[in-house]
């Protein structure tokens, strides 16, 4: 990709006769960074790509420049995966998130290497990967517990058993943080899928390597195809599609860009999407993880269940 290395092998005749000499330099096999839709790794339908560079000016890779049609396809996958994922036992979702953490642990070295390529120091890269793994474990634990915390049984005057429980909102579109390209990414995806939603994620534009590799982790960790869909490309081009698609129920945005935020507020009103801005969160701190992040993409459903009014049993529920 990108560069061509011409590998010359030469033949020379020694005194002993014909002797074959091969060059010790081999062609490096560069990885193609593709997007992740519905459990497959297609190239963008647009055929476009871009080349992010690091601070030292080194070209990182050829990365897909996704189009609105990739997003459209990803939403179809996410919608298709929703009933299966939200219908799973919460405990099973926890198992799968834990499995994701295990797979990430197994490929730690690769993530550290990619973060270093994207300008992180070794110490910072190691810290970021470790925290990302721990964050998956954290949300794996919450999968079957946040419901108890945020559900309630409500006292009502009539003879009804009245209770409220959180339910996943549906398909969530996420524009992942630009800076913390692995930790930020994991921190926004994990609570969304822990709660039973499916999502379409736009990775960091300038630092996309970890996102694509993380998609490979997802693909090998029992997560059903379509639950997480990963696109790479320019937020400036895609945000408006992320926020005005009628089949998306919630959108998460992590930048402080107030003009974009205003545009998103207006467009999200079209189908009354939930819109959440994580523009002040420090993903490295304690406040970077909390069950309240799960609740940001949950709906509260209240049920009035008629019960017999038993004489003398009193009111309440």
């Amino acid at each position, binding site marked *: 990709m990108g560069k061509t290395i011409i590998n010359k092998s030469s033949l020379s005749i020694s005194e002993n006769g014909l002797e074959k000499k091969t060059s010790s330099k081999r062609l490096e096999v560069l990885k193609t960074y593709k997007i992740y839709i519905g459990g497959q790794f297609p190239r963008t339908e647009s055929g476009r790509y871009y080349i992010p560079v690091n601070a030292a000016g080194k070209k990182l890779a050829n990365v897909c420049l996704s189009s609105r049609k990739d997003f*459209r396809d990803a*939403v179809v996958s996410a*919608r298709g995966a929703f009933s299966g994922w939200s219908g799973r036992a919460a405990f099973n979702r926890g198992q799968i998130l834990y499995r994701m953490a295990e797979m990430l642990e197994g490929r730690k070295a690769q993530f550290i290497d990619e973060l270093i390529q994207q300008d992180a120091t070794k110490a910072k890269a190691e810290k970021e990967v470790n925290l990302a793994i721990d964050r998956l474990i954290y949300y794996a634990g919450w999968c079957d517990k946040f419901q108890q915390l945020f559900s309630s049984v409500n006292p009502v005057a009539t003879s009804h058993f009245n209770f409220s429980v959180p339910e996943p909102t549906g398909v969530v579109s996420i524009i992942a943080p630009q800076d913390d390209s692995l930790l930020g990414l994991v921190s926004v995806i994990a609570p969304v899928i822990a709660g039973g939603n499916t999502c379409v994620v736009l990775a960091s534009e300038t630092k996309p390597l970890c996102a694509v590799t993380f998609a490979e982790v997802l693909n090998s960790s029992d997560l059903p195809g379509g639950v997480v869909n990963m696109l790479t490309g320019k937020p400036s081009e895609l945000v408006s*599609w992320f926020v*005005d*698609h*009628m*089949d998306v129920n919630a959108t998460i945005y992590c930048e402080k860009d107030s003009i974009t935020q205003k545009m998103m507020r207006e467009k999200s009103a*079209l*189908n009354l999407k939930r819109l959440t801005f994580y523009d002040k969160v420090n993903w490295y701190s304690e406040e970077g993880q909390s069950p309240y992040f799960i609740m940001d993409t949950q709906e509260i459903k209240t049920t009035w269940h008629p019960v017999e009014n038993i004489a003398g049993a009193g009111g309440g529920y």
Partner: protein
Amino acid sequence: MAAGSLTMLPDFSISPRIDQVGVEERASRFTKRSIKKEAKMNGLLLVLNMIDLTTLEGKDTDGKVKQLCYKAMHPHDAVPGLPTVAAICVYPSMVKVAKKALGDSGIKVASVATAFPSGQAPRDVKIRDTKYAVNEGADEVDMVISRGKFHAGEYNFVFDEIAAIKEACGEARLKVILETGELGTFDKVRRASDIAMHAGADFIKTSTGKIQPAATMPVTLVMLEAIRDFYYKTGKMIGMKPAGGISKSKLALHYLVMVKEVLGEDWLNNEWFRFGASSLANDVLMQIVKEKTGVYQAANYFSVD
């Protein structure tokens, strides 16, 4: 009737052989056309207007059929000026309900008949089935051919049966379902098409929708070419109805391209071309709204048939 006007019927056992590789290659070419903006919008409206909105389930009720008829007349009232669908396709027992619900909207009522979908019944039962549907008010009859007899080589039986049903139809237009998924090869599809057209079919139709595979582009191409050859030979136009498995607008537009390039514009209206589908209508509506608003749509905002 076509058969009567011909001095001699062809020998159906020597219907043209079909080059499978060639047909599949040709059919795939139709999917490479780029149809955008205004042409796409006109195509979508045409597709909507060509749909035979179908419900053929054991669990159909009067209420379900009435609801479907309302959908046929008012596909999506949020967008003014949309065309209606072409017809409602139901079982004979539901014809009266559909006819009444549709009133003078101009939408046709098509009824399947002849022991649909298997066609495994004696001829007199099939004829009574057809007459019942027509008496109830069906404008069009969708019959199935006897695939078992066809496979056994009893082409005369199949021919006579179609001719008998055509007679029972009276004024109603007859669509002949070949059930291509059960025929096996393109050669047999071509042969069955020739038999149906010579026996008096007004339309030939791919499938019942109960068997997989249903309509595909290659099999439809084979049938369109049979129609074209028949037209050149007799001067009589025959309609085409692919049914089953066409649920996306894009695919439907590919079919329109195919019809235009094989048969020409004379066939590009609901008099001569239909889509048998139930979920296609909503996808077309979603695309129309997307084109008008610029915003991708969600199924939640469109009526469930």
